[in-house]
């Protein structure tokens, strides 16, 4: 029987997801494949890694710090917890690594995310305003060439 994990993340909490910058298409939409679950090292649990802004802020970290921690090959995307729940996702905290606020995002029914569900996440993901300036500066240089 599956263990119930309380979904305690406030709906207005910003949820960050770092993805490889090369996976942003020229129209600004990320590839759907960026929103896949990943196996834990022991293979026991699958989820998509995210970071929660409330916990980051309590530890004195901002999205700029998160972006810096992931480096220039990545771009941090943002959702609200409420938006992800509307898409059928469940969120929980799962501290991992040195950066604070790490957590998990998975389909509420425990199933693997389908391609259509990944695509819906890609459509609502946005670049946080704090990072917009930096992204504009790199546009056309680091992003993949048009097909």
């Amino acid at each position, binding site marked *: 029987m599956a263990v119930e994990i309380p979904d305690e993340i406030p709906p207005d909490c910003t949820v960050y997801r770092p993805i490889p910058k090369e996976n942003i298409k020229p129209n600004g939409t990320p*590839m759907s494949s*960026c929103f*896949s*679950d990943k*196996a834990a090292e022991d293979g026991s649990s699958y989820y998509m890694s995210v970071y929660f802004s409330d916990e980051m802020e309590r530890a004195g970290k901002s999205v700029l710090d998160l972006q810096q921690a992931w480096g220039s090959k990545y771009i941090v995307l943002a959702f609200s917890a409420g938006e992800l729940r509307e898409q059928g996702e469940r969120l929980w905290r799962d501290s991992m690594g040195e950066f604070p606020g790490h957590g998990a995002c998975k389909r509420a029914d425990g199933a693997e995310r*389908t*391609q259509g569900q990944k695509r819906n996440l890609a459509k609502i993901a946005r670049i946080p305003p704090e990072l917009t300036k930096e992204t504009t500066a790199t546009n056309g240089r680091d992003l993949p060439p048009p097909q």
Partner: protein
Amino acid sequence: MTLAESEQTAPNSTDAAIASANGSGTLLDPKQIRISRPGPDASVSTLLGPEQHPPAWVERLVLEEIPTRDDYGLIRLETLVRFAQACSALPNQTPKPYLGIGDDATIGAEWDIGRYHIGVQVGNNPAVDSIIFEVDREEPEESSLEGNVGVLAALMSSILRD
């Protein structure tokens, strides 16, 4: 246009035109895409029917770009072959897709063509192989890729004519 409408116009022979075989090097067909990795069962060839003219980008995508992007070597040979087979059925004027490798070891190919979005996903578990089709960023229609390679080809033909 919907996936179901494309299904009605899909050629019945598209799937049958593609066969795969272990690469013995003795296959007589003029066109093969041979996919190899080190190891005892290294070579797999995707054999294309003589009437097939796959898009020019397929071979490079399958042989070079996907292995390069698959950082952890998670994508299995048979997954690459299924992806190559699906892409090889597309009209030869199909533009190169955007490519993504998911943390769940899926290969994702996407096309944004005018109002249309088409996505193909192939994973190590064939149950996750799928097509999505979307118009004007509305809710995507999703179908299994298995048995629908012809639908994908017909859909792409229709969009490219549009």
